[in-house]
């Protein structure tokens, strides 16, 4: 049943597949982000309470939900690497971590810039903000562990264990607005059934969310192929590739 997956455990096949995917992801990211963000900045109506400051939403919410989604993807990669010893899973976990850290930082910074005019403060130590900050530290820890060992297998194991322990933080972030009293508003988009948002506000969000997701794909692909090359530098196919492309 899993036979079709087998060739992708080969680094050479994965490297070439990544190269093939890259232009598609890049094109789709550019199209969706342009449409989504122009729509969000120019055409979406202003919020009746928050005015135009609400436009920060179109960066803040995709960044925040992707920061959790990316962590989940990294945890799946770490799990497969620890259980089935897939070397490529290690490479992808190492490729994913910096992207997640970047989106977590964006969620925190845009959140602060939104909090200042709306709540009157850049930062408050409440459940949602603190747990998201811990997510940033988890990402930084994982990145540090990946770089702390000369032996990449050992590094992958250490970083993988930290990743799996840190998964506990994801539901805490997600449900923090329901479990504790917090300044942060509850979710408007992902309410099951119907989102509590008017459609002319929701559509630009959907476009920018898809655009950001493809951008995540682009950056992960770029980093993943770097990881593959670095980890397979003595293989003949890499040597052949290097001979043609070195300058």
């Amino acid at each position, binding site marked *: 049943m899993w036979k079709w997956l087998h060739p992708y455990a080969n680094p050479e096949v994965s490297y070439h597949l990544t190269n093939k995917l890259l232009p598609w992801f890049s094109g789709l990211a550019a199209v969706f982000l342009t449409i989504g*963000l122009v729509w969000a*900045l*120019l*055409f*979406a*109506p*202003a919020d009746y309470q928050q*005015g*135009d*400051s609400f*436009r*920060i939403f179109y*960066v*803040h919410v995709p*960044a925040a939900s992707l920061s959790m989604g990316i962590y989940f993807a990294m945890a799946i990669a770490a799990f497969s690497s620890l259980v089935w010893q897939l070397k490529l899973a290690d490479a992808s976990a190492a490729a994913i971590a*910096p*992207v997640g850290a*970047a989106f977590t*930082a*964006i969620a925190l*910074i*845009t959140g602060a*810039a*939104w909090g*200042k*005019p709306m709540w009157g403060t850049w930062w408050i130590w409440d459940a949602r903000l603190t747990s998201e900050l811990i997510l940033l530290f988890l990402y930084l820890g994982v990145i540090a562990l990946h770089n702390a060992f000369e032996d990449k297998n050992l590094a992958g194991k250490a970083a993988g264990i930290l990743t799996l322990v840190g998964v506990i933080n994801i539901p805490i972030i997600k449900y923090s607005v329901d479990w504790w009293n917090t300044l942060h508003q509850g979710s408007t988009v992902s309410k099951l059934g119907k989102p509590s948002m008017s459609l002319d506000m929701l559509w630009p969000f959907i476009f920018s969310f898809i655009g950001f997701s493809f*951008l995540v794909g*682009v*950056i992960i692909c*770029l*980093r993943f*192929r*770097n990881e593959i*090359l*670095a980890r397979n*530098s003595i293989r003949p196919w*890499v*040597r052949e*590739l*290097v*001979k043609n*492309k*070195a*300058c």
Partner: protein
Amino acid sequence: MQFNSFSDFINMGGYGFYVWLSFGVSALILSLLLISSKRGHQQIINQIAKRKQREDKLREAKALRKKHNEKNEEAKKANAALNEVTE
């Protein structure tokens, strides 16, 4: 279109600083990450090429030394033979 003029658009109903701070910082972080990830590819390729060059040089030097030693060995043997004969 929600805005009447370009300055209205920049002003964002008084929230311009916060809105453009958010969008600006996000664009900055993402483009830095994108560029560094893209550049990494050529850097790694050059690194591997350099390492290969060093290995090739090392291998060459090894072969040369071996050749040299063999020659020395032969000379020594010839010398010894000569010594035996002259004694």
